[in-house]
């Protein structure tokens, strides 16, 4: 079973030298801690920054300098500020190579729902709909089951959608999942997790042979 850092570390293997990457709030943010040494990756924050640096030293917080999660951050040499239209312009134009975001549900067709629980949670989609409609690679980081213990990998999403057939990979505490014409495909198992366990907790159609390797990190 993977913890949150394990999920982030697994997703960090998707990074490539020279990538421009947008990381969502929550587990996706942790991916920044696992960028391999020597690899140059630029983090895009959709509130208007390319080249996001780490949190500031205590006492050096700048209220004018935050990320999309409203956290105080810093710049790096080569960082750029821009307005929100240019920020989503570069997203829409497909310049962002990889988007990592959280989800409440993912369907076996790659649909994603992550912004609204009708009658309950009202937060809004923020930039998620723009990102999933346009990023070149979209990876979801999430827990495999919800608080009630029900699978979040479903035949069809039950919650209002964020985007259609856009997710290419899902990483949960149980494994790494891709997609084919039939549905989810188990690519790798989390250390110590058996295929039967994964099947039991996945409601969407899942192709799994049992020969899938355990996740390993470089």
């Amino acid at each position, binding site marked *: 079973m993977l913890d949150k850092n394990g999920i982030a570390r697994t997703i960090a293997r998707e990074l490539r030298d020279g990538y421009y990457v947008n990381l969502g709030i929550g587990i996706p943010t942790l991916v920044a801690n696992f960028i391999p040494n020597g690899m140059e990756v630029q983090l895009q*924050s*959709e*509130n*208007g*920054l390319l080249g996001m640096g*780490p*949190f*500031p*030293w*205590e*006492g*050096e*917080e*700048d*209220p*004018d*300098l*935050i*990320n*999309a*999660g*409203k*956290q*105080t*951050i810093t*710049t790096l040499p080569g960082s750029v*500020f*821009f*307005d*929100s*239209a240019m*920020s*989503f*312009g570069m*997203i*829409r134009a497909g310049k962002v190579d990889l988007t990592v975001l959280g989800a409440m549900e993912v369907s076996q067709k790659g*649909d994603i729902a992550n*912004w*609204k629980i009708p*009658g309950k949670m*009202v*937060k*809004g*989609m*923020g*930039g*998620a*709909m*723009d990102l999933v*409609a*346009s990023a070149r690679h979209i990876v979801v980081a999430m827990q495999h089951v919800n608080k009630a213990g029900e699978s979040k990998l479903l035949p069809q999403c039950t919650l*209002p*959608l*964020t*985007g*259609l057939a856009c997710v290419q990979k899902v990483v949960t505490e149980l494994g790494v999942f891709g997609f084919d014409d039939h549905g989810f495909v188990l690519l790798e198992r989390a250390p110590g997790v058996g295929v039967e366990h994964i099947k039991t907790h996945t409601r969407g159609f899942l192709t799994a042979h049992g020969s899938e390797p355990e996740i390993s990190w470089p």
Partner: protein
Amino acid sequence: MNKGDRGGPGWTWGLEDDVFLRTTNRMNKVFKDALSALHDLQDGTTLMLGGFGLCGIPEHCISALVQKGTRNLTCISNNAGVDDFGLGLLLQNHQIRKMIASYVGENAEFERQLLSGELEVELIPQGTLATRCLAAGYGMPAIYTPAGYGTEVAEGKETRVFGNKTYLLETAFDADYALVKAWKGDRLGNLVFRATSRNFNPLMAMAGKITIAEVEELVEPGALDPDHIHVPGIYVHRIFVGTNYEKRIEQRTVRSRS
């Protein structure tokens, strides 16, 4: 005044709704404070407000709205502030009738008013929000975006396929006033923003029929490098200096020195 009545007093020909007659001099856009700059803002107005979270919000304009007690406002803003700061202050007073935003997760009062039906809310994708502002400032009636296709955001909207992708037609915003916060400005209305407090501010500044900018520093024309101005003053109708900015931080995240 007749349209086409050139050469009359001032430069007012052809302007039906005379924005600058409300200021004394077209090229001196300076007001003494937020209340005077917002003097003619009426109940039922549609407003744009810059800022992302609490970063780069027009704090003094919001305070003036609270003080004026202007009601039935439609507010276009990425977020709705927090319970006791930013747009949250207007929500507490029930001054907002309708909110158009992309993310409102930090405001419990907002959620309460929405679920109880007191507040009308339109949630739209953040890039769509930004680009509908951009379209207004660029004089374009609408734009196409793929964001929201296949979701409830697309309901009732015209779609069109370009290449192998489906796009939604989204119209430019039509807002009476834009209230923005800049770092520096001059009396001609030229504006410069700082760091990520830029966000929606320049876009909304360009999109408002009447744009009111509050700045931390008002400088003489010529003091801002023409190469570094983010919003040309032609888009800005009124400007004032805001003092004692609170600039509240929403999520203070730091590295410890120990």
